[in-house]
């Protein structure tokens, strides 16, 4: 789960990670009130969406008067903000964050992420703040300092020294401030079961203070149960409604832009099914894992979600029944076709436990647009052919 910048900064503040002061606003009037409360002469109006590249897309603007804050908030609120991470359709902005202007002397990058190979969190820092870190990693990997921290011992002095010397911070007072910043960030990463923290840019002010000018946080979904305060930060409007609906039924769904709907048990086989459709000259319309407990209700829900997509010309149901018996799934499919109007051909491949009985059930039901397949290759080929015909 991801959260907004203003929410990440609330967590930062709780741990003493310094940020500029700011207030979130839902309307231009609230933005004006926020600017008055913050005081000063310069404010930044920042669109709050779950995507990077907001500045380049026109979602972050500088205001030099309260009137300008109002005007900019009016422009940014409810705009469809397009960035390199939103896709061409963009995302509607529902909230803006009004932040006091900062005196930027230097822009750095600081992040914490799990290093899967080392099996430890790694703190990443760079002098190339404000740039896309992927690009920096690709073009100038030597400009990224990586310090892995073993959670068994936590953040040590040497971790801090590697960071500040790596970044070329030489003033002892500044070193102390930066090390304190990084150690707090590591602490909040661990204590909140974060999956990723990124501060880009982290700025050094004219007075030698370090501030998180931006903040991005993602969390381990499996650990949200023990963090109700973070679960409360969930912004449903940022989530795909179909993915959300699917998850309520234990289905894992991701929309794609092809023509063949897929319903599969198991994430690996679901991806493998998409790949096979592609290999046979078709295009998958979605990833859908019905999980280990496929039944008539979940299958019906799966059909419903797949068929919401107007591009779908055929559906390939690919189930390898292990503990789940195929005859039960066959009956589930028949029931589902009664619950949902399935108006495209459905190619069904059921293999594994009781596959022969399942084939018999489907054959006897004799539903016009349900086509049986013998194996994965056969099913994918039939689905591709059916999509091409319609």
């Amino acid at each position: 789960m991801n959260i907004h910048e203003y929410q990440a900064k609330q967590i930062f503040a709780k741990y003493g990670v310094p940020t500029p002061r700011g207030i979130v606003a839902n309307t231009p009037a609230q933005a004006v009130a926020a600017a008055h409360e913050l005081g000063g002469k310069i404010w930044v109006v920042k669109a709050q969406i779950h995507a990077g590249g907001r500045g380049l897309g026109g979602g972050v603007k500088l205001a030099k008067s309260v009137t300008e804050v109002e005007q900019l908030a009016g422009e940014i609120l409810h705009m469809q903000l397009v960035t390199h991470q939103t896709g061409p359709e963009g995302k509607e902005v529902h909230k803006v964050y009004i932040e006091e202007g900062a005196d930027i002397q230097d822009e750095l990058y600081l992040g914490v992420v799990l290093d899967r190979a080392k099996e430890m969190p790694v703190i990443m820092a760079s002098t190339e703040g404000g740039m896309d870190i992927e690009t920096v990693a690709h073009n100038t990997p030597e400009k990224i300092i990586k310090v892995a921290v073993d959670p068994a011992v936590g953040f040590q002095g040497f971790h801090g020294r590697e960071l500040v010397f790596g970044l070329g911070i030489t003033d002892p007072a500044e070193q102390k401030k930066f090390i304190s910043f990084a150690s707090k960030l590591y602490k909040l990463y661990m204590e909140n079961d974060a999956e990723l923290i990124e501060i880009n840019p982290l700025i050094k002010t004219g007075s030698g203070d370090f501030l998180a000018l931006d903040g991005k946080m993602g969390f381990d979904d499996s650990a949200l149960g023990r963090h109700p305060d973070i679960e409360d930060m969930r912004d449903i409007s940022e989530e795909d409604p179909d993915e959300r609906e699917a998850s309520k039924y234990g289905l894992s769904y991701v929309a794609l832009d092809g023509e063949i709907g897929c319903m599969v048990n198991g994430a690996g086989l679901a991806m493998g099914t998409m790949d096979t459709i592609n290999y046979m000259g078709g295009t998958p319309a979605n990833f859908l894992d019905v999980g280990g407990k496929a039944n008539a209700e979940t299958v019906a829900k799966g059909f419903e979600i797949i068929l919401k997509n107007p591009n779908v010309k055929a559906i390939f149901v690919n189930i390898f029944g292990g503990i789940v018996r195929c005859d039960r799934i066959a009956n589930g499919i028949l029931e589902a076709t009664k619950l949902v109007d399935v108006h495209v051909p459905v190619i069904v491949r059921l293999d594994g436990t009781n596959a022969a009985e399942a084939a018999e059930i489907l054959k006897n039901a004799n539903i016009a647009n349900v086509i049986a397949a013998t194996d994965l290759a056969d099913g994918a080929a039939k689905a591709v052919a059916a999509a091409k015909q319609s």
Partner: protein
Amino acid sequence: MSILVNKDTKVIVQGFTGSEGTFHAEQCIAYGTNIVGGVTPNKGGQEHLGKPVFNTVKEAVATTGATVSMVFVPPAFVADAVMEAADAGIELAVIITEGAPVRDMQAAKAYATKHGMKTIGPNCPGIITAEECKIGIMPGMIFKKGNVGLISKSGTLTYEGANQVVREGFGITTAVGIGGDPIIGLSYKQLLPLFEADPETEAIVMIGEIGGDLEIQAAAYIKEHITKPVVAFIAGQTAPAGKRMGHAGAIISGSAGTAAEKMAALEAAGVKVVVSPAEIGKAIKEVLSK
């Protein structure tokens, strides 16, 4: 022969009396697995599925001589259970549970490693030595005995791959589902040498997916150390970047962890890489009839 487990392996079940633990332990016993007991705190002294229940893993190990534990406890208790097993001298913990927090697994795996305990999973179908020992949730009847070893991040692709191998007239020595979480126990790199050393295994099927770099590490290892033919499939060639595909670890981060880079690395290591899982059986037939 086989790797890691066989008909003599003594297995206990942690989370023995829960509904999942009960159902699958029963299936494992029916398959022939030598389940010698289980652990459920405060149910020690009882009998379940005809086997003794213990309060602690230490007691279970002392009484039964078990060396392997199959873990079915709920996600929030997985780390505790794994560390208890390691502390009690268990040699291998097979963690079936899905949804354990990453931070917990990080700590549990580090602790297990320190105590010399191997782990498989979490979020995996388990391990099976065909017609001898099933420790997990896979449908046993698919796995006929034979000469092909199998390592997979995905449960249903394990079944798909094994089924195709069997339909081509071959069979399985041992199949290991290693799981698709960001932090997992035994991986390709640790399992490949075991299959290389197993005299009955003549070829290896390796099934991977997008996310992380375990398959890249495997490719480097294969190039240097594996003489037996390897057939590989990487799921997620058509997966979009930045989207989590079902498994917690199946995500392309930026430009890293794509199927294309993994396939290229494996091909460069001399592995026969198939573009569809439907080709696994045929590819095994091809490499074994050379």
